[in-house]
């Protein structure tokens, strides 16, 4: 357990009045190791460790707990703070308000669109799902089937241009008095210039108050690179981390939050439409620390 690991490293702190630079040094090296093992991107891990170092230095070693336990508390609290406050709600503009879902191939966008639609329907809204992935084989069929299962309308078009689809979908939502639009976009590499340009055009036409970057929960070091690239090219307003029903430590949560400074709004915890949870920074901190 985490506390035992730190006990080994801070055993020499016992009997000392303060956490000093020298005795914190070994401990923060261990923190960095734990972060890396939990798949936190290196730059994010370095930044976090630096914060821990500053926070720990000069603190009085409390009488009631061991120095190891104290370090763990500092680390846990600081990690939860880094991960952001309690989950922020979805941002809406005037009806029909658009939510644009973006991210790398296979991250879980299409499945998450359905989950989000169900969540919004249950909270009293009238969502419209928009099948704007004209690239992946049977992507449209996938979203249509999910919509059917949930009794939620899905806008489809024979048009190959996702930007035009978004335009037509908005008209359709207005005509049908639906109050929110969830656009499923095609998975894409952040290094694919053409596809990133297309996404920029899609965002500018759809004009969504909310653009959510969907990230696979088992992403490792690449999390900072891809999140940075997406957020530099388009305006990301929030993050969703998927597949957290597995045993991945989920360090990507810290990486993407750190590099974008945007809130993680939801986490995907399964393949079914109901498997969408609000993000809890405290729980995520515990999971990352193992």
């Amino acid at each position, binding site marked *: 357990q985490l506390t035992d690991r730190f006990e080994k490293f801070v055993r020499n702190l016992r009997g000392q009045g303060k956490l000093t630079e020298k005795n914190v040094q070994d401990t923060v090296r261990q923190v960095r*190791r734990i972060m*890396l*093992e*939990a*798949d936190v*991107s*290196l730059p994010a891990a370095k930044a976090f460790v630096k914060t821990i170092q500053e926070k720990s230095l000069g603190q009085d070693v409390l009488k009631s707990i061991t120095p190891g336990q104290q370090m763990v508390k500092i680390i846990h609290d600081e990690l939860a703070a880094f991960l952001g406050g309690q989950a922020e709600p979805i941002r809406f503009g005037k009806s029909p308000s658009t939510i644009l879902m973006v991210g*790398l*191939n*296979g*991250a*879980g966008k299409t499945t998450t669109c359905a989950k989000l639609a169900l969540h919004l329907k249950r909270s009293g809204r009238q969502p419209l799902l928009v099948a704007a992935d004209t*690239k*992946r*084989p*049977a*992507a449209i*069929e*996938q979203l*249509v*089937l*999910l919509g059917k*299962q949930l009794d939620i309308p899905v806008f489809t078009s024979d048009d190959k241009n996702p930007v035009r689809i978004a335009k037509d979908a908005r008209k359709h939502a207005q005509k049908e008095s639906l109050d929110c639009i969830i656009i499923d976009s095609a998975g894409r*590499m*952040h*290094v694919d210039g053409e596809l990133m340009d297309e996404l920029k055009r899609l965002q500018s036409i759809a004009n969504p108050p909310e653009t959510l970057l969907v990230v*696979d929960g*088992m*992403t*490792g*070091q*690449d*999390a900072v*690179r*891809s999140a940075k*690239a997406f957020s530099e090219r388009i305006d990301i307003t929030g993050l969703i981390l998927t*597949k957290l*029903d*597995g*045993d*991945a*430590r989920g*360090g*990507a949560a810290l990486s993407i939050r750190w590099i974008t400074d945007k809130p993680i709004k939801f986490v995907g915890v399964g*393949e079914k439409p109901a498997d969408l949870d609000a993000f809890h920074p405290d729980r995520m901190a515990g999971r990352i620390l193992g």
Partner: protein
Amino acid sequence: AIFKSGKLDEDSIEELEDALLEADIGVSIVDDLIEKLKDEFANRKKDKNLSPAEILKSHLITILNNRHHTGTESCQVLTPNTTRFSHKPWVILLVGVNGSGKTTTAGKLAYYYGLQGKKSVIAACDTFRAAAVEQIEVWAQRGGARLVKQKSGADPASVAYDAYKSTQARSEDLLIVDTAGRLQSKRNLMEELGKVARVLRKHDPTAPHEVLLVIDATTGQNGLSQARGFTSVAGGTGLIITKLDGTARGGVVVPIQSELGLPVEFIGLGEGVDDLHPFDAKVFVNAIFE
């Protein structure tokens, strides 16, 4: 350019270490590699002009090219003595977590071996996910493969059984079995996968001849947990790393090979049917130090 440098001081060690860590090679392996590097560099002959980067590369290439490691009981690597297509049909089972690229890779494999004159059949054993069959129908067509499918919700083992029988009856060369994505921590889903492997073995005790774990290059250290989990229920002969056309380096294959002896057989470099290439350790390792 730093990697061309011939010296090994504290700064260059950190730079090399960072490159390895950011490639998802994992702290333990990186620690070992750096220790080995320091020893080797200190004891190197004066005439040997190898830079520290070159030394690291050669160690990595040695690990990645090791095909003589017979892995564990559950991993039977294709040794130089086992030739592909020495059985008819040659059976490849594709396994892996959700969204890693299995279905796309099934089509690519059919296309790849089609160029070598092999007749392929694809078994649509993902009978669960929305529009999975519609998706693989397109990929089978692109890969020039015959598709064996049943209706949604059918038992995957029964589809595998049908596929084997018809492939054998028609004397086709290659049977590629695509399975549903699943997380290795889900016991019932892993048991379902084990059943698919067993059903193939019933027809031919040497089948499946290849069990390839399809891993997304962005995967962090959870890739090792995936490898352990999947090989323990379905056996394992190798890996396919997909999405290497991004910025992720796929370094988790190093600890996987190191611990389980599973070599990388192919890499995926895009969404096109011809974006599958046999693994080249040298190219892979060079990319880590780009």
